[in-house]
């Protein structure tokens, strides 16, 4: 198969209410479902050292009811009609999403508009106390009690200086989570949870004209807030390798290598994503073939580039086979990166990577909440919902020469951080 630009049929309407709320409407009537997807342009990057994890804790609080919705009613009301809902927090944004039976669209609009416009009256110390405990358990479950769980955190601490907004983990440090106060929750809400700092996407089976009228009815009366404070980002270059050895309760050593990568949306970010796929996408990729299959020094290997708004992380991870020195694994991994900075990729590898990325894009469009999330993402970051359909083409534009250039400028010693996770003596 050759890599032709796929013809994606993703129609949408894009509106802006008087209070600044941006609205994307994407009609897709195959199933009687509707996705209600709300992005707030605030994430852990908007926090400051010593007060980390706040955006995420706040996300939990937003499920604890609002003026007209009881403490446990948000999930209850959604689930009892067959809705599936959750939220997530990231460095650059926080999202809230629900997929509902199509005839329950109004319920989704009521719940989302109530917590955007009428959250503060429902806020209680008791709810905050419970959710702080829940989030501390979430941190234990996802990070502290997971083998290798602290490695990603350590890598970011090395890769970004302490005053950089990507230095600290999204979930925050335990002592900061424990210290969060009700007053901070109030201030955070008034600063960031405003219609002018949000994008609402509806995707699924609905009439766009009626839906827009209902969105205006539910959200139109919420007053806009002041402009959101800008985030200062220190220079994009690292300017010297940083390293750490992290003893952990693990059986097998694992290496994490991170490079400072371009920001999401830049052409070179797509080059980085293609490069990651060329190097490690699938069992027939060169790194899997060499490290796992031929030399059998690795249990697994992977590379990815994160879609960060202010400059990304190109990360490579490999787990050592028993008895293999972690230095051997690091050398092998970096050898492939160095080669990518000098030689053009094999055309077969490039075609595999392109086809793989296209299939991933198609697969990601199978679920309504995925589609809605993409529209919100492109509207939030780039004010351009059309970017969803155009993204496949952006991958296909990347030339072999750009992969070499990306590797030569970004995947270099002075721009990298290395974390070696090794078994702790006592274990």
């Amino acid at each position, binding site marked *: 198969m050759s890599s032709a630009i796929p013809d994606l049929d993703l129609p949408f309407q894009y509106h802006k209410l008087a209070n600044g709320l941006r609205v994307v409407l994407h009609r897709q009537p195959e199933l009687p479902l509707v996705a209600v997807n709300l992005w707030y342009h605030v994430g852990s990057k908007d926090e400051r050292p010593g007060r980390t994890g706040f955006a995420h804790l706040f996300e939990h609080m937003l499920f604890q009811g609002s003026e007209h919705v009881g403490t446990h009613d948000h999930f209850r009301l959604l689930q009892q009609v*067959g809705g599936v809902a959750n939220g997530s927090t990231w460095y650059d944004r926080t999202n809230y999403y629900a997929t509902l*039976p199509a005839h329950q669209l109004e319920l989704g609009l009521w719940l989302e508009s109530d917590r955007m416009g009428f959250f503060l009256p429902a806020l209680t110390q008791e709810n905050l106390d419970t959710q702080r405990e*829940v989030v501390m358990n979430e941190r234990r479950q996802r990070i502290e009690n997971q083998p290798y769980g602290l490695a990603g955190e350590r890598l970011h601490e090395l890769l970004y200086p302490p005053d950089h907004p990507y230095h600290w983990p999204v979930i925050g440090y335990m002592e900061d989570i424990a210290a969060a106060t009700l007053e901070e929750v109030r201030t955070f809400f008034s600063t960031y949870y405003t219609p002018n700092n949000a994008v609402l996407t509806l995707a699924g089976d609905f009439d766009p004209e009626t839906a827009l009228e209902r969105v205006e009815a539910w959200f139109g009366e919420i007053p806009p807030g002041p402009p959101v404070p800008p985030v200062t980002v220190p220079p994009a270059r690292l300017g010297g390798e940083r390293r750490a050895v992290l003893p952990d309760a693990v059986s097998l050593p694992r290496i994490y290598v991170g490079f400072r990568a371009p920001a999401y949306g830049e052409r070179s970010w797509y080059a980085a994503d293609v490069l990651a796929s060329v190097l490690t996408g699938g*069992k027939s990729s060169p790194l899997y073939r060499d490290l*796992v*299959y031929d030399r059998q020094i690795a249990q697994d290997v992977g590379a990815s580039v994160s879609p960060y708004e202010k400059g990304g992380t190109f990360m490579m991870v490999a787990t050592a086979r028993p008895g293999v020195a972690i230095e051997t694994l690091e050398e092998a991994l970096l050898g492939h990166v160095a080669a990518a900075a000098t030689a053009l990729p094999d055309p077969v590898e490039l075609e595999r990577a392109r086809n793989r990325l296209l299939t991933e894009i*198609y697969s990601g469009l199978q679920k309504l909440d995925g589609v809605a999330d993409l529209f919100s993402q492109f509207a939030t970051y780039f004010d351009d919902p059309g970017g969803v359909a155009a993204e496949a083409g952006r991958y296909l534009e990347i030339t072999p020469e750009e992969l070499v250039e990306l590797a030569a400028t970004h995947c270099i010693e002075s721009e990298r951080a290395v974390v070696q996770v090794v078994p702790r003596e006592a274990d």
Partner: protein
Amino acid sequence: MASRPPRVDRSSPPSPGPIRPFQFPSFLRTRLANGLAVLAARHSDLPLISLELVTPAGGQYDPEGKSGLAALTAGVLDEGTSGRSAMEIASAAERLGGYFTTGADWDVGYLSTGLLAQNRAAGFELLADVAFHPTFPVEELERLQRQRLAEILRRTHDPSALADDRFHRVLYEGTVYAHPLIGEEDSLTTLDREALVDFYQRHYGLAGAALIAVGDFDPEELLREAESAFGSGGPPAPPPPPEIRPPSRPGISVHIVDRAGAAQTELRIGHPGVSRSHPDYPSLVVFNALLGGKFTSRINLNLRERHGYTYGASSRFSARMGPGPFTVNAAVATESTGAAAREVLFELRRIREALVEPAELAETQSYLVGVFPYTLQTIGDLAKRLETMAVFGLPDDYYTRHLERIAGVTREKVLEVARRHLDPERVAVVAVGPAEDLEPQFEGLGPVTVWSPQGEPQLV
């Protein structure tokens, strides 16, 4: 906006619009001339397809002392055919942007490929090649053995895997379900090519197998292609599934797997459950959703929202041919482990004591009814349902009647299945965390055994 919209009433949930009906998608269910079952459904939102062959070759067929045989056989299946090397198999699908994978669960072995729809012919050819002409090369077998031994080693530091493994060992001592699917070190090292070839010949001969196809294609055309790719050979009777009889349990027992210094405790509570084919299974789906199968379930609201002990707690009946486990699952703060276990027991006892509230049951039913189309969005979703029909021999109208079955479950039926299938006084409690902190918390609950992560009993 030109005109100001009418003010909305925020005081109570808005009324829904008219319901739009949902039908389980139509599908084709037939057999090839040689008896191979074919289940196919068209799903043409996107130009993708999924092709899968499932056959009775799951972990339940592992002979005694050979745990991991089914999984390893499935794993080596796509590591070489008479015409292709392991790398050639991997790259055949991957260069087209697709995947090809093999594996085994407890009931079946499977070969599965996902591709852009235009590459369907290549997918069929590859599937048939791997299904019919595997060579089980010794060097690939040995490579996978080493990889799996390393994985078994890795699991000794994975709290979630440690909890599952100990839980299943306690529940199913002396049966095939006692071992993890991947097998154990002692067994895995003894498996040789002969054992794999023998297992392959007994379990991959298309007897009792099914071809599942979902995606952007014409089902009639697909049937012709299936006939040409899989129509040869005539399957004998499928191997009978083994009878799995869990040992009896005298009362509540507590098992601690010691991880000194762990930041949290992995908790499992439960006992052997019922076969997927049990007539109560559909009622148990409703029952379990209410008890621990959704965010607003009794167990999650209690442990997470009321007490803050955990990020999330849930329960499930594992659907297997044999009596798979009923499991309550949570990662809890270590100092709250005993309290969390008692709250779980409280909920298990409470739901056996009295009828559930009408509103609670109605909410659960409307959740399961409303969520049905959500669980059928992707090609993989639909393929999974067709696979379930094939593997468990469910009638053609099983999913068409899914919604009415849910609606037909009464409060009395919930109480009846709770009393029949929950046994809170004979649960196993498994906690993976620092034994020193955990042990005192279980005082009075039942006898406590402490284990090392490697599986040796520890002196208390």
